[in-house]
């Protein structure tokens, strides 16, 4: 049994999710991280995506 990991999907998924959420926050007028709202949220979700690609338990085929 081997585990196949998908770090690139995690990277791009996290980046897009962070970008979308950051823009939603800006357009909704909720800059939760002040001047770093966009860069901070995008960076956080990108890193989170990579980490999840490694840390989540494997699903069975």
């Amino acid at each position: 049994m081997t585990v196949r990991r998908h770090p690139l999907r995690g990277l791009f998924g996290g980046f897009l999710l962070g970008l979308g959420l950051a823009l939603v926050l800006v357009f909704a007028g909720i800059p939760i991280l002040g001047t770093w709202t966009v860069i901070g949220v995008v960076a956080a979700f990108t890193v989170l995506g990579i980490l999840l690609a490694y840390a989540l338990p494997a699903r069975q085929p």
Partner: protein
Amino acid sequence: MRRIARVASMMGLAGLLSILIAAPAAAFELNGGCTLDIASTDASGAALDTSSGAPGGGQGGTQADPFVVDWDGSVSWNGSSGSQVFMDHSWQVSVFGIPTPLRGGDPNDGGDTTAVDSTGVSENAPFELTGIFYVSGDINGAEGTHCDGNGWFRLNGNPLTTIPFWVSVIIAAIGAGLLLGARPTATGATASSGPSADEPPADPPTQVPMP
């Protein structure tokens, strides 16, 4: 590959923490000797808000008290470069620290040191926007002349009726879908392991009928 990704993840976390800790104070700040007074009106032409920039933070234009703009209104400004004359200058604008295509320059052959003008808000964007934005910018001219500034402004309106808001929701949904697909998968093969799996699986073997 796995080690590189782990190191990149740790560096990303460290970078994120450092920029959050070092986040600058938000104020309508102008540095370099320049001054700027701005005013906005609503759709009917009535005065809506005013703000002025100054070294160390001016009046309004902060995150708590952003400069309010109406999509159907206008913005006027009265700026001065003080004792500096920006010959052959270039300028650029960033939003939330990200450089934008808003940039330009001018030889300023006349040696102007003031700018007074106004513009309609909706005339300068292809679609309606709402929200709160942190804007910064700088201008550099010949002989080392320089000014920079930053401040917050709010575009009034309902985000649910704007295209950019829903495009952002779609981007987030695509990202969430990709993230769900990033979950590791267990396979029966034992020949290889590791993070090389962002590639489609091989076609299953085809069954050839016996003659």
